[in-house]
């Protein structure tokens, strides 16, 4: 399992980040930018996981507390909190995460299906993949870490809000 990430069909790149002591990953292609946490303008009458809206170069985009959205304890804002701005089916949204870790390449074949019981909405997790994590001294932790790959389409806000509203 040592060289898993270096050979065997490295088809896609994912951004990994930590949230509620877990490591999550999203497809690089959906990522627009990573911004510092900035208190968004709160919205009335929306589910609690929507933190509000913020200004992304003239666009008004919602900021989502990803932890709450996924059913974990809400993130505590700290110096390394940041917002991943992603594009989901043509709409933009910001996801509050605890810390952005790395960008890694993975092979499609390495992705394992997620057990259905793991989350409140099984479809939100597209799969599980093991990656080698970089240590502070630059060497690799050979044991690796499990990454929960998120299915962004399933996280689409409009879909969820239609149900919630």
């Amino acid at each position, binding site marked *: 399992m040592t060289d898993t990430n270096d050979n065997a069909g490295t088809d896609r790149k994912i951004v990994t980040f930590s949230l509620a002591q877990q490591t999550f990953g999203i497809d690089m292609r959906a990522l627009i930018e990573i911004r510092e946490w900035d*208190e*968004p*303008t*709160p*919205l*009335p*009458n*929306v*589910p*609690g*996981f*929507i*933190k*509000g*809206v*913020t*200004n992304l170069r*003239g*666009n*008004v*985009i*919602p900021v989502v507390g990803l932890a709450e959205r996924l059913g974990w304890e809400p993130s505590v804002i700290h110096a390394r909190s940041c917002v991943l701005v992603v594009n989901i089916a043509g*709409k*933009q*949204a910001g996801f509050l995460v605890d810390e952005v870790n790395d960008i890694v390449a993975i092979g499609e074949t390495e992705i394992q299906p997620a057990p259905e019981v793991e989350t409140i909405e099984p479809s939100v997790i597209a799969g599980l993949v093991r990656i080698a994590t970089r240590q502070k001294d630059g060497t690799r932790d050979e044991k690796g870490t499990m990454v929960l790959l998120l299915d962004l389409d399933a996280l689409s*806000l*409009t879909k969820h*809000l*239609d149900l*919630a*509203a």
Partner: protein
Amino acid sequence: MSDELDEIQAIFFEECAEGLTTAEQGLSAMQAGDVSAEVIAGVFRAVHSIKGGAGAFGHADLTAFAHKFENVLDEVRGGKIPPSPGVVKVMLSAFDILTDHVESAKGLAPRPADEAALAALEQVLANKGADDGAPAAAPAPAPVAVEAPAAPAAEEADEFGFVPMAVSLDDFDAPAEAPAADASWIVTFKPSRAALANAGEPLLIIRELETLGAEILAVDTETVPPLRELDPEDAYFTWTLRVPGEVAEGDINDCFDFVAPDSVVEVRRDEAPAPAAAAPAADTGADEFGFVPVSAPIEDFAAEMQRVVETIAAASPPVSSVETPAIAPKAGGDAAQQTIRVDLGKLDLLLNLVGELVIRNSILADRLSPADRQRVELPELARLTRQIQDNVMSLRAQPIKQAFSRVPRMLRDLSVETGKTINLETYGETTEVDKGVIEKIGDPLTHMIRNAADHGLESAEERIAAGKDPAGTIKLSAEQRGARIFVRVQDNGRGINRERVKAKAIEKGIISPDAVLSNEEIDQLICAPGFSTAETISNISGRGVGMDVVRSNVEALGGRVEIHSVPGEGTTFTMILPLTLAILDGMIVRLAGQRFVLPLAHVLETVQPEAGQVKRTSPDSEVIDMRGEYVPVKRATEIFGLNDDRAVEDSLVVIVESEAHGKVGLVVDTIDDRREVVIKSLDQNLHPIRGLGGATILGDGSIALILDIEALVASTNRYTPKGMAA
């Protein structure tokens, strides 16, 4: 290459759409009794140019149908066929088929079944000619049953006591059978000055006429300016040609299908049969006169001019003899309007940029010191920015007629499907609305009209039994009130059967059986998802999605739908829409410290309440004493679930005028500012939120939410289900 062709073809289809709109408006006017010459000519020109373009792009079916339609219109225009209601009806049906043909030519629809419409047109052509026939009708050269394409009868035939009737071209081609045909045609052709620039090469037209046996009688060079002022790329000549009498007028006119706008074309019968000798042997010279090569050296051209003048002097008959009243300018353009086509995308981009400019402008103002802010440059910049903004907005404003134009056709179809006779009355078509609004009200409008025709109006029998006019009426109107547009669809049908609506809602589980609802609440159930009272699911409506879609579409636009129904008298659906989707004049207020934008259009006045001026009428409701008038007070902070301990005496009460609930006082902390804001919709990246009309970006780059006054004052209870996020 094919891309270019597609592009040109796209322009043609755009022109088709415009032509169809013009034709439909004209036909509707005719149906309403306006059969003036301009109206008829307008319809004729519209159909004619569709035919011309279709021919150029090889849409044979469309061309053939338009041709037949045009023939009838030409006869009507010439007064040969009276524009009776029956004829107008046939033309309206033909118009519908023509629309379908255009769709088919676009490849969006299969070829329509036009046989019935063609036959109806044939019959109009055939019958009307015969009906109006004088007793001393000349022996008909052809029986009434005519195969396409039939040429319109000669315009000037009356002068010869000739009975106009539809005859086939074949018969015209046989000179012996056309009694009056030996009077030859005199054709006057004056291309517009810009003919060459518009690729309307006169020489090609003259040559085409020559293939019909035309000969040039005269070339009028009077308008040719002195050489110094002469622009070699302009057309100056007027030609007079003689075309043999046996040539059909339609064939002559066909030569002029593609002349530049503003060209003058006259085709008439010569007063007296021309003596054979009168025709000058100008054939050899014709080509030279017909075409002035732009590259020709000036000397040659001058010599040419001299020859032209000599030829004129020798020519007979003189030009003056052909000065008869114009029959009709053949080419479509009345005074060419100074307009250009602009891609809507470019306009949207411009609007966005101006929006950004407005924001930068206020950022700049915020950054400057108060002293600098007062200097002349900044107010000047603000004024200019506002002017640019107003102008860009006006570019996008379009008469609502565009959204209404599809309704007549729809009602004709609905009339056939339902077997009901439906009259349509439209008002306020010229009301101007932002293009974005027009685009988005199409679907809701369609649903509302269908609903009115299918559910609202009764069958003729029911109407007679109720003592009503058997024909139902649907009124479609638009008006602007302040910053809102009201679009109404009103029928004079049976009204909403509230008992049935309620029963159905209970049956569908939309409301509980013991729910107590006001009449208005019952009416609103029509818009509930999954509601439909139609006994049988009809083709037209009744799938239970219609009114639900109307409401959600209109709400997504920041508008709302109101229903007003009187049993036995009819139902009115009103869409209340914002005038624009882009800019709002607003008051920046604070609610629990957070900035919100309150649309200024609603604001009547602001008061700082004194102790005891605001009183509770129940634990959840308050009123404010406004000079003896008790106005209900709403606390937006409570509605939005914001924490606010501020005493009402420390707050301000903004009195707003709402459409649905009259005057209402809204409690706010303070008023920060008044400014124009650019509306950013929340649903672009999120979802519309009740109580909010959108968001805007303030001068410091932060976001302020825009309050939807109507939704706020309509909320009788607190919004508590989820409270405020964060």
